[in-house]
């Protein structure tokens, strides 16, 4: 966009220099916490006290990672965050798959099989994307209690599906609205039914939006703390809750290396997803954002 032709070359050069300097400073600012976490997790406590945030470890040690995984104290128990890491997977995988699949079906109905009131319903559902969840957690806690699902993984999965569906439906609805309706009409004339069209025409087109939606939901559910802390108990807690307990429980000497190793473990799955599929992650963010 910039047109350097009318600017004299020397000030253009200085301009470029300043530009890159600012950008590099910004890159360092964004990278710094991750680097600090990693360096700290590889040090011994003596090393941490002797050095500073970004000093290189005198000796690279993985003991903090081992302790974080299997023997660090998270509140009452001292079994590390390993079990909670698997808890999070047990919560996240079904919640993501079910909410995504339901979102796809909902989006399909809301664009290709509209009926009276379906647009109104979509508007009402969008509201669900915006409410602060504080306004539903007390009744939900009561309901889960009645259903016998309090403090269970099933209960937490259920909550994530219910409140994730507004987003997944939004994703698929906005994607399917761009799929030409003629495709569906032609198939209808041809006698294809609701599910035939979905399986044979709509699903084969849906690859990218499935990736976007699954990544979005995975990040949301994995990173959730509010639902986890309210609806799970003891041994069903997700990793975010365990990490918070580990870092903020005030028993014994603070081990910052173990704190940082735990934080890295909690961050790894979503970071890996981001590195592998960053493009889709960003697309989900902006789609959810601009439209929602």
């Amino acid at each position, binding site marked *: 966009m910039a047109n350097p032709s009318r600017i004299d070359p020397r000030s253009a050069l200085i301009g470029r220099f300043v530009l890159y300097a600012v*950008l590099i400073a910004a890159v360092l600012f964004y990278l710094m916490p991750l680097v600090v976490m990693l360096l700290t997790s590889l040090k011994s406590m003596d090393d941490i006290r002797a050095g500073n945030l970004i000093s290189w470890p005198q000796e690279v040690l993985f003991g903090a990672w081992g302790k974080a995984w299997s023997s660090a104290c998270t509140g009452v128990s001292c079994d590390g965050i390993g079990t909670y890491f698997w808890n999070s997977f047990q919560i996240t995988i079904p919640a993501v798959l079910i909410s995504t699949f339901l979102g796809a079906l*909902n989006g399909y*109905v809301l664009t290709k099989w509209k009926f009276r009131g379906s647009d109104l319903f979509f508007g009402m559902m969008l509201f*669900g994307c915006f409410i602060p969840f504080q306004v539903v957690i007390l009744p939900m806690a009561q309901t889960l209690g009645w259903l016998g699902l309090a403090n269970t993984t099933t209960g937490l999965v259920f909550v994530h599906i219910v409140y994730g569906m507004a987003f997944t439906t939004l994703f698929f609805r906005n994607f399917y609205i761009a799929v030409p309706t003629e495709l569906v009409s032609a198939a209808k004339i041809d006698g294809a*039914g609701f599910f035939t069209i979905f399986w044979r025409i709509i699903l084969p087109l849906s690859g990218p939006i499935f990736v976007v939606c699954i990544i979005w939901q995975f990040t949301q559910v994995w990173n959730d703390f509010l639902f986890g802390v309210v609806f799970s108990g003891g041994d069903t807690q997700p990793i*975010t809750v365990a990490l918070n307990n580990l870092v903020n429980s005030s028993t014994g000497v603070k081990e910052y290396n173990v704190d940082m190793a735990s*934080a890295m473990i*909690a961050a790894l799955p979503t970071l890996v997803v981001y590195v592998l599929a960053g493009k889709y992650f960003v697309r989900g963010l902006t789609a959810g954002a601009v439209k929602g």
Partner: protein
Amino acid sequence: MSMSNVSEAVAKPSSKGTEAAVRATSSSPLDWLQRWLPKMVLGPTIISTLIFIYGYVIWTGVLSLTKSRFLPKYDFVGFLQYEKLLDNDRWMVASWNILVFGGLFILVCLALGVLMAILLDQRIRAEGAIRTVFLYPMALSFIVTGTAWKWILNPGLGLEKLMQDWGFDNFQFDWLVNPDMAVYTLVIAAVWQSSGFVMALFLAGLRGVDGSIVKAAQLDGASMPTIYRRIILPHLRPVFFSAFIILSHIAIKSFDLVMALTGGGPGYSTDLPATFMYVTSFSRGQMGLGSASAMMMLAVVLAILIPYLYSELRGKHHG
């Protein structure tokens, strides 16, 4: 792939005639099923939305009118809980904090976001890599962010020690344990996490600006800063609005970051409405008061959202 599927479906030598006949009679059970199937598929979602969103909001509203403590009890006391809320020092601190935290967080994110987007839009080498770095915090949990920044801002071993090691012997940084300053640590961490995302929104907006208008302005002798101020930034108005909405949404929902970074402390100096609601309802067993605070949060969200949606819809109508 899709086209072949479609043509296959269309070209399938199917019973077009009989289908038309079924359609005409319109009374076969199969036809009935086809008509009701979409509604049946959407049905569970409709029911769950009505119950778990609308029903629960109303339920919370009802609870906020009662004296419920650890368990819901439906003896109504009118707006007593709301009066108590406004008399509650902790709630007033939380409300003030959300203004300070939310205001600064949104302003800094918008400013940084625009600036970074403009800088990145100057045909930068390795733009993709830089964008990736700016955005990765968005993939992290606020609990992880809070944990990391709690360590970085640690008075004694964190940033303070680093600066002292670098020769700034008198450098002091105790915001995390200073009741007057702790709320700004929330701003730092939240900005770190979300500003890259705002940058991505603005960058997408910048890429959508018509290059020919900019060229024309340049031919007229306008300088780049003028072009940005008079032409490009006004084009980004919608992006500003949606970024504002998302950021205020993040701010009002901020719960995990506070829990991980400050725990609401020192004292309750960094409480936000979201943490107030949690502590009041679950730790202190004042469900009525907690419900009232949740309803206040909803009211604030609606107060921001409704004018936005209204202008959006009206804009679409005119457009």
